[in-house]
C-alpha cells in the first residue's frame, strides 16, 4: 500500500485512533496484524516472505544468544544461515534474472551462447529494506551489540512495522526494539508534529516530485528526441524529483510512526547543501549509508587498512550500494561513479590534508557537489546504459537552443510553460525551506508563529496535495486521436 493513496488514508484513519483506544497490552499484536494487512495490499502471498525472514532471523538470533563464544563455528553457521537466507531471497527475486542475463551476454561474447534461465516472479515490495533490517539484527546479536529479543511478537513487529516497511528508513534493532516495550499515552504535541511531517512529506512527493516526473519521464523515456538544455533540465529536475520523492516518503513514514509514539531515524538532512560527496552521503538516505558503513565497510576493514585497500573498500561499498538500488548496469555505474568521486576525494584529502578551502572558494563546494551528484543521477534515471551515455554525449549540444524547452511538460494539467515555471518556483522554495531548516534545525512548519497563519499554511499545503493528486492521477499524454 502506498502512503499516497486513498487506501492508506482509510487504513490510517482506522488504525491510528484504534491504536490509542486499545489497552496497552493489545497494541503490539494490533500493530503486527495491521502491518501485515498493510503489506498484503501489495500482494497477499508475499506476506509469507516477510514471515519467513522473520522466523529465520528470530530463531537464528535466539540460538546465537544461547551459544557460548567458545562455539565459534556454530555461531558463524547461525549467522551464515541468516545472511544466506536473507540475501538468497533478495537475490532470487531481485538479482537472479539480471545475473542470468548478464552471464548470458558475457558467454555470448566468448561464443558460448546458451538459453538464459529467467523467472517472472514479481519483485516483492520493500524486500530490499526489510531483509537488510532483519539481517542487521542477527549480525548485531552475533556481534553482541544487542541482546536477543525473546518476544517473537516484538521482533515480528520490528521487521514488519508498517510505517517503514516498504521504503525505510532501515531501522536498527537497538533503536526500535525497546520502543515496542514502551506504553505510549496520547501526546498532543507529538501527534501534531507527526501529522505536520506527514503533510510536508505528502507535499514534497505529490506536488513537487510527481510534477517534475512529468518532464523527466517525457525526456528520459524518449532521450533520442532531445539534446542540450532539455536533457540538462530533465536531469536537474530528476535530482529534485528523487529527493522529494524519497525524502517525502521518509517524512511520511517518520511522521506516521511519530504520531503513534515511535521515533524513526532521520533519513535525509538537506543533501543538496552538502559541500562534498562524503558530506552528501552523510545527508542522503542516511539509514542505508550507515547500514553499509556498519555492515559492509567496517567488516571489510574500513579505513583501518592500507590506503589502497581502503580505496578498494570504498569502491566496493558504493558499487554494492548501486546494485542494492536496482538490478541493472545503470545502477552499478551510478554506484561506481559515486565510488569514484569518494576515492578521488579521499586521495586528494590524503595528499593535501583536510584543509579548509579558502573562503572565496568554499561557497563553490556546494554547487560543484550538486553538479557531480546530478551528473551521476543520469545513470540512475536512464532506462538503459545506452540511453545514459546518449544523455552524457548530448548534454552540452545546444544546437536547438531553448526552443521547446518547456514542451516536455505537455502532459501536465496546466500549460507547459506554466508547469515549467511552477516547477522552478517549487524547487527554489524547497531549497529555501531546506536552507532555513539548516539554520533553525527544525521542520519549518513547526516554526510558523501565529495559529491563523499556521492553519492557513496547513490548508494551503493540504489543498495543493489533494488537488495535485486528483488532477494528475488521470494525466496521460494528449492523444491526437482524442479529437475524434
Amino acid at each position, binding site marked *: 500500500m502506498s502512503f499516497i*493513496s*486513498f*487506501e492508506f488514508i482509510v487504513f490510517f484513519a482506522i488504525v491510528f485512533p484504534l491504536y*490509542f483506544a486499545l489497552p496497552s497490552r493489545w497494541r503490539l499484536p494490533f500493530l503486527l496484524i495491521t502491518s501485515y494487512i498493510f503489506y498484503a495490499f501489495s*500482494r497477499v502471498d508475499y506476506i509469507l516472505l516477510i514471515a519467513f525472514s522473520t522466523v529465520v532471523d528470530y530463531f537464528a538470533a535466539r540460538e546465537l544468544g544461547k551459544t557460548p563464544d567458545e562455539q565459534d563455528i556454530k555461531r558463524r553457521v547461525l549467522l551464515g544461515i541468516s545472511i544466506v537466507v536473507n540475501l538468497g531471497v533478495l537475490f532470487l527475486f531481485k538479482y537472479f534474472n539480471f545475473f542470468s542475463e548478464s552471464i548470458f551476454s558475457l558467454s555470448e561474447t566468448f561464443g558460448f551462447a546458451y538459453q538464459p534461465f529467467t523467472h517472472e516472479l514479481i519483485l516483492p515490495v520493500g524486500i530490499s529494506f526489510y531483509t537488510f533490517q532483519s539481517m542487521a539484527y542477527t549480525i548485531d546479536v552475533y556481534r553482541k551489540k544487542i541482546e536477543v529479543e525473546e518476544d517473537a511478537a516484538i521482533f515480528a513487529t520490528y521487521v514488519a512495522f508498517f510505517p517503514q516497511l516498504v521504503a525505510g528508513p532501515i531501522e536498527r534493532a537497538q533503536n526500535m526494539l525497546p520502543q515496542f516495550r514502551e506504553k505510549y499515552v*496520547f501526546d*498532543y504535541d507529538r*501527534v*501534531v508534529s507527526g*501529522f505536520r511531517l506527514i503533510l510536508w512529506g505528502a507535499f514534497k512527493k505529490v506536488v513537487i516530485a510527481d510534477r517534475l516526473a512529468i518532464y523527466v519521464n517525457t525526456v528520459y*523515456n*524518449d532521450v533520442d528526441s532531445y539534446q542540450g538544455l532539455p536533457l540538462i533540465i530533465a536531469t536537474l529536475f530528476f535530482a529534485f524529483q528523487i529527493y522529494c520523492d524519497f525524502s517525502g516518503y521518509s517524512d511520511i513514514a517518520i511522521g506516521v510512526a511519530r504520531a503513534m509514539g515511535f521515533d524513526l531515524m532521520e533519513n535525509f538532512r538537506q543533501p543538496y547543501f552538502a559541500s562534498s560527496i562524503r558530506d552528501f552521503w552523510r545527508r542522503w538516505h542516511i539509514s542505508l549509508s550507515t547500514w553499509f558503513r556498519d555492515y559492509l565497510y567496517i567488516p571489510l576493514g574500513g579505513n583501518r587498512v592500507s590506503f589502497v585497500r581502503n580505496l578498494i573498500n570504498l569502491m566496493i561499498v558504493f558499487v554494492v550500494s548501486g546494485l542494492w538500488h536496482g538490478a541493472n548496469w545503470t545502477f552499478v555505474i551510478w554506484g561506481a561513479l559515486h565510488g569514484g568521486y569518494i576515492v578521488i576525494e579521499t586521495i586528494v584529502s590524503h595528499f593535501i590534508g583536510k584543509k579548509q578551502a579558502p573562503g572565496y572558494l568554499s561557497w563553490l563546494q556546494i554547487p560543484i557537489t550538486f553538479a557531480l551528484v546530478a551528473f551521476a543521477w543520469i545513470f540512475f534515471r536512464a532506462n538503459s546504459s545506452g540511453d545514459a551515455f546518449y544523455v552524457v554525449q548530448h548534454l552540452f549540444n545546444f544546437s536547438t537552443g531553448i526552443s521547446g524547452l518547456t514542451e516536455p511538460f505537455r502532459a501536465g494539467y496546466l500549460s507547459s510553460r506554466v508547469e515549467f515555471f511552477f516547477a522552478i518556483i517549487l524547487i527554489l522554495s524547497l531549497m529555501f525551506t531546506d536552507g532555513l531548516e539548516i539554520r533553525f534545525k527544525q521542520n519549518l512548519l513547526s516554526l510558523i508563529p501565529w495559529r491563523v497563519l499556521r*492553519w492557513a499554511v*496547513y*490548508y494551503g499545503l*493540504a489543498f495543493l496535495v*489533494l*488537488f495535485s*493528486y*486528483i*488532477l494528475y*492521477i*488521470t494525466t*496521460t*499524454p494528449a*492523444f*491526437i*486521436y*482524442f479529437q*475524434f
Partner: protein
Amino acid sequence: MRKFIIRFTIFALPFTLYLVLAGGLAIHTGESLTFNEVIQRQLSDHSILFSPYDQSASFAYKVTYLQNYAPEVVIVGSSRVKTYRGAFFNLNPDLAYNACGIGWTMRNILSLTQYMEVSPPRVLILSLDQQWFRSQDSLNNFEPFTVNFSTLDRERRVIGLANVTRAVIDEEIPLSDMLSGNNSRLGLTAVAFDFGYGYDGSHYQPGQDIEEIIARRERDFQAFEAQNGTFYSPANAISTTNLGYLEELLQWAQSHDVEVIGYFPPFMPEIYERMDGNEDYSYIPQSASALDDLFTRYDFHFFDLSDATESGGDTSEMYDGIHFSEVMQLRLHIRLVETLPDILGDYADVDTLETWLEQNDDPFFLNRSEP
C-alpha cells in the same frame, strides 16, 4: 485527545465535504464503477451506454471484456470501426465483440494479444487504418496502453472522483448534467453527451445533428485539400515498422488457430476519388498490396475497402472524411460474409442482413431496436 479530535475534525471538514460531494457524483454518474461492474450492467440491460471522462480508459474497458467473456469473434481497430455492431453477427450476436477504441495504433492492437492469450477468439476482424502503414506515422511514437488488473478496480474508484473534479474545473460538463444523471448512461461523457460504448463494444452516438455532420465532412475535405491532419498527410512510402507489428500479430493468430480477416476501411468518396491514383498518396495502394501479400502468406484474408462506393455506400453515410455509419459498416460486413462464408457464415445470415439494408431509409441508423 479530545483537543486533537476537535481540531483535526475542523481541519478535515472541507476535505471531507469535497470527498463526499465528488464521490457522490462519481457514484451517481457511474464514473467510479469498475469496468466489470459496467459490463455486467450493460449485459443485463442492453440500452446502457458507457463513456467515462478519461477516454484513454477504453483500452482497459475493452480488455476487461475480452478477458472475462472470451468472445468468439473479435473486431479490432481504431474509432473507424466503432459502428461495427455485434448484431451484425445475427445468428448469435452474443458471440461477437467490438474491441475498437479511440486513439488506437497498430502497437496497441498488437498489445491486445497478451490479453487474449488464455482464450483466443475464433475469428479476429482487423480494421486497419491506411495511415498506420504510411512511412513516418507520428502515432508510432505513442507507447501502447497497458493494464494492471491487480490495481485496476481500485484505480477506477479514485479516478472516478478525480474525473468529476476535472470535469468541473475544466468546465467540460455542467454540474446540472451530473446531478440529473441518466439511468441508461454510465460515465460522465455518456451522461453529458449521450454517447458511448454499448454492450457489444461498438460505439453509439444517437441524435447527431445533420448540419454538424455536413460541416465535419466539409472540414475534413478542406483538410484533405490542404494535405494536413493525421489522415490526409501525403506519403509515397510505407511503414515497415507497422508492417512488422502486423506480421507479429498474424504470427500470434496462426499459432493460436485464430482466423484473421483484415480490411482497409473506406474514406469519404469525394476524398478517396482524389486519393485514388494520386502519386501523393501512393502509400495506400502500396500498403494494400503489401498487406495482401502478408495476409496471403499466413493463409488469412485481406480486403481493400477504401472505396466506399464499391460497397454500395455514398457520402450520406459518412460522419466525416473517415468515420462512417452503421449502415455503411453493414455493407462492408456483408461483403466480408459473402466472400468468406466458411469463416463468417456460422455467425451471420447474409439474406437477413440484406433485408435490413433494403428496408432501411436512414443513412445513419438501421431500423433495429438498439441503444
